[in-house]
């Protein structure tokens, strides 16, 4: 009876979990930035968490909840260790690029060669414009330097 009533909720939540997992899969397959790849992996874990909690609710069992708590724990450990490796990789190559480590690839796989891209300055980042209010603060000479890093 319980299962019958919670079936639509189960299906909707599983769909959300499947969407998050698929988006994370696409992200980890296609992005080159190590940190964005890592965010995509965390997103796959989020999809799994949603699905586990949905099943837990469906069956009235605590197993899914407990498993999600362990997923959180392991994700925290994984993030700590992996970010250290990302920092090491960055300090060795000066780039957060996964293709910077393509010397580790199989002998049969071809080399990734970037196409010619327009200069970086050709695509300026767009910042929000805010309505001016109050007193104009004194100009901050560090601001352009910090904006470059966004």
């Amino acid at each position, binding site marked *: *009876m319980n299962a019958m009533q*919670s079936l639509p909720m189960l299906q909707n939540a599983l769909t959300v979990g499947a969407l998050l997992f698929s*988006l994370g*899969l696409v992200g980890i397959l296609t992005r080159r930035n190590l940190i964005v790849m890592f965010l995509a992996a965390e*997103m796959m874990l989020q999809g799994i968490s949603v699905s586990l909690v*949905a099943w837990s609710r469906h069956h009235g069992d605590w197993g899914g909840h407990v498993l999600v708590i362990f997923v959180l724990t392991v994700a925290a450990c994984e993030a700590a260790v992996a970010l250290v490796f990302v920092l090491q990789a960055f300090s060795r190559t000066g780039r957060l690029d996964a293709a910077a480590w393509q010397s580790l690839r199989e002998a049969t796989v071809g080399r990734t060669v970037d196409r010619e891209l327009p200069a970086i300055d050709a695509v300026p980042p767009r910042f929000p414009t805010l309505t001016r209010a109050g007193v104009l603060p004194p100009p901050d000479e560090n601001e352009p330097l910090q904006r470059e890093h966004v």
Partner: protein
Amino acid sequence: MTPAFDPPLPGTILAGGVLAAAASLWLLLPNGPDRAGSRRLGTLLGLLALGAFVVTGRRLGGLGEEAVFLIVSLVAVVAAAATIVSRSPVYAAIWFALSLVGVAGVLLVLGAQFLGVATIVVYAGAILVMFLFVLMLAQPAGLAPYDRVSNEPFLSALAGAVLLGVLSLSIGRLSASPPACCGLPSRARAGADAAGTGQPPPAAAVADPLAENHVARLGGELFGRHLIAVEAAGVLLLVALIGAIAVVGRGEAAQASADADPGRPLR
């Protein structure tokens, strides 16, 4: 309500939605120069795909619950898509934080109060801040070339569409009856069978058997049946902490020796 009487139309809408989602991702993923036309078309296709998923979603009981679930799941999914298509990794991290808020909302709607709050605290509060610290330490000035291209966006979007299609198909075929081979040893159902001599259980218990005294019972389960696993997780956290510190120290030592001896190759 029973899936057996559903017309074949929802399957068609869902298949179209999956394909539209894949095409939208393919158009939106960073791929060389920024083209406003393909971005607009990708956004439109993404909205179409979301609409297909919303239309084919199962109706929940109450309108309020349905609206809340729809809003939080849309926030989660749209922010997740924006995470993987945004060119700047800082924006990706911030979109991911918004996606976490949506996921926490979905968990709350599903009745997982502790996990909803824990997701915000642990993920958005700790892990994501760590990501932003690393980005601050390691982000080169300006938009890096490798953030503006993708590895095989078409094949990746296709792989995602295949996975999503298979998952949606199997989700749509779920039925209320337990699998024939093995009845699940659900304690809630066992309790209902033991207590239920013709008496229907209370309405609240039917809606969510885990709702009453939620956090206390979750803690009891965690530190009762899963105590050994909790201890192992504690050891794992400690090992990860010490390992991270060790790797940082060793990397710095290697860097210093490489600086002192430039002839030696680093890799």
